[in-house]
């Protein structure tokens, strides 16, 4: 049995798992949703604190090498837990207002986060597979939460069927890699010398499975419908926490298991990155529904992150981690504000033009929305710019000039659909009939903190970049 002090290495996951079970029991025996909300927030805060201090601790492997801790894994845990914490806080008001405030949501979010924390620190194909599956099953359930509406359940079915389909490919890739190398540990797969066709088939199928999870273009079919069908704060959770976890696991697999094959999968990722950026942005341009536009923008951001993965050096990986941090902050904020606007039952917000003139009615929300959207475009004073800049710089160092050119053009194109929202918010005058409810103190405080972080890490990214750089070689 692993010694007890090894349990410390996955303490955040244990806390979140325990919290999930506790919340499940509270929901069953004490039907008090506010108590459930408070326990969830408390435990997530505790786990986040531990994960942050893990980042500065030493890194290594535990549980017979199944789990890796410290460094990148701890930073991945921080990303996931930030996403979870903000989602839980925003969900309370959002779900109350939209009438589907049930305690099972919190237990499913906690179980999903448990899966992500395992996925983020996986160093073996078995833990990787279990992490991905636990995360996915909880997300299938969360996607179908608003059952009475048609589109929610349709999103859940589409997500589920395509998810089961991609799990088949992912597992087949793992099987072939295990067949070629004889062991399921990522580091052993790296030491494989004769790379037969089985190895390359395994790599290809594994990439297909991961591309589905991060919704790269040919495998993104599920993303817009699922993001639109799910409740908005749950969409924020899916867009930020689950995508960051999938990317960190992808980094571990690429850097740990397949370092020699970098040239080959570098080209594959190069191609998929261009596809994702171009098609993601083009489709986002034609969208009218803001939530669907944000879904396509998250696909486009996956394309920018793939540029860093195509570069494949340790510097590129730490740039990707920074980008994921900025991406999580701005997407949580943007989806949070869209969720706020959806509180108002009377008004329908399917079209962008319904946002006309709302900027002045609730100035706080308008300003915050503009901060997040500017950060998404990549305008200098915000974290989004620093993220994009460092990823592009890492790609240029590796000579992937064409990728960076497409990235810059795509970012330029993205200005149009991001600022269209702002134009509607501020330039168009709204019909006087609409009055916006004041957002709760906790709700607006969370969004203000997110905006403050976006600006702080935009202006002074120094200490975070040093920390990320200090992670002792992701693929040691």
């Amino acid at each position, binding site marked *: 049995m692993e010694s007890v002090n090894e349990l410390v290495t996955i303490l955040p996951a244990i806390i979140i798992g325990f919290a999930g079970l506790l919340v499940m029991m509270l929901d069953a025996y004490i039907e008090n949703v506010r108590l459930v909300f408070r326990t969830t927030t408390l435990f997530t805060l505790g786990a986040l604190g531990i994960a942050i201090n893990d980042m500065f601790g030493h890194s290594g492997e535990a549980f017979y090498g199944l789990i890796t801790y410290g460094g990148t894994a701890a930073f991945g845990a921080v990303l996931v837990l930030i996403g979870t914490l903000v989602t839980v806080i925003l969900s309370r008001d959002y779900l109350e207002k939209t009438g589907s405030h049930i305690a099972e949501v919190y237990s499913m979010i906690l179980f999903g986060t448990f899966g992500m924390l395992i996925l983020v620190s996986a160093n073996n194909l*078995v833990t990787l597979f279990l992490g991905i599956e636990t995360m996915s099953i909880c997300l299938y*359930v969360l996607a179908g939460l608003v059952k*009475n509406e048609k589109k929610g359940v349709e999103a859940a079915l589409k997500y589920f069927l395509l998810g089961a389909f991609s799990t088949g490919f992912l597992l087949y890739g793992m099987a072939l890699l295990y067949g070629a190398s004889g062991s399921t540990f990522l580091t052993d797969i790296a030491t494989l010398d004769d790379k037969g066709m*089985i190895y390359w088939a395994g790599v290809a199928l594994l990439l297909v499975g991961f591309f589905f999870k991060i919704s790269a273009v040919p495998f993104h079919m599920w993303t817009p419908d699922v993001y639109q069908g799910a409740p908005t704060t749950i969409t924020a959770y899916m867009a930020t926490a689950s995508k960051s976890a999938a990317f960190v696991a992808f980094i571990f697999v690429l850097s740990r298991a397949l370092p020699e094959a970098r040239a080959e999968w570098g080209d594959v990722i190069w191609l998929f990155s261009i596809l994702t950026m171009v098609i993601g942005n083009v489709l986002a341009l034609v969208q009218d529904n803001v939530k669907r536009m944000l879904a396509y923008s998250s696909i486009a951001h996956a394309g920018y992150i793939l540029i860093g993965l195509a570069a494949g050096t340790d510097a590129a990986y730490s740039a990707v981690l920074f980008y994921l941090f900025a991406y999580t902050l701005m997407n949580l904020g943007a989806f949070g504000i869209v969720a706020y606007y959806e509180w108002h039952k009377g008004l329908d917000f399917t079209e962008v033009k319904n946002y006309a003139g709302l900027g002045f009615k609730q100035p706080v929300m308008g300003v915050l929305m503009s901060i997040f959207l500017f950060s998404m475009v990549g305008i200098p004073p915000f974290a989004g710019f620093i993220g994009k800049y460092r990823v592009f710089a890492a790609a240029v160092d590796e000579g992937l000039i064409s990728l960076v050119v497409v990235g810059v053009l795509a970012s330029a194109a993205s200005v149009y659909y991001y600022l269209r929202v702002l134009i509607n918010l501020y330039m168009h005058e709204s019909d006087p009939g609409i009055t916006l409810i004041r957002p709760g103190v906790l709700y607006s405080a969370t969004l203000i903190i997110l905006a403050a972080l976006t600006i702080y890490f935009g202006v002074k990214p120094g200490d975070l970049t040093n920390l990320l750089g200090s992670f002792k070689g992701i693929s040691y």
Partner: protein
Amino acid sequence: MLISQRCSFFKRGDSIMEIYLFFLFATSAVASAVAMITSRDTVNSALFLVLNLVSIAGVFLLLKAQFLAVIQILVYGGAIMVLFLFVIMLLNLSSEENLLNRFSAKYVVGFFLGVIVLSQLLYAIADFTGTLPNFSPGIEQVGTVEALGDELFSTYLLPVLITAVLLTAAVVGAILIAQRKLTGKENK
């Protein structure tokens, strides 16, 4: 005896029965898989899948993975397919499906994509043969319960606990989604 000398690709150590059994299970697996896809009635598809699972369990036996063969029949055939049939009955949707009436492009695309995937995989496998010894000698004990148990509860103890959380999450999720109305008290 005559057969095993003439065909080159049979290993000398194989007894004839193993070869026959492999082909028996293989044909029944492929036949039931094809039947599952092309059958019009959902219940028939489910029963063909059960036949497929049993024949794959037979192939597991040939590979000396006896514990997995029994588990496959017990869990897959016994529990999961029972749930499938339950839901098919519950939703009363085993109606005759007009499967091949209009030759939509989907069949062509699906079949074509499938053939591409198959050719890639077979090419990969063909390249692989012969490079490694076929079956390591000690596979008798590998498939037994003891071997699996030793490994499972020493090295892989953490994934066992992760699976416990996964199953509980599945239970909570399934109840959450399957219940009729969600709002508040009245579903108590």
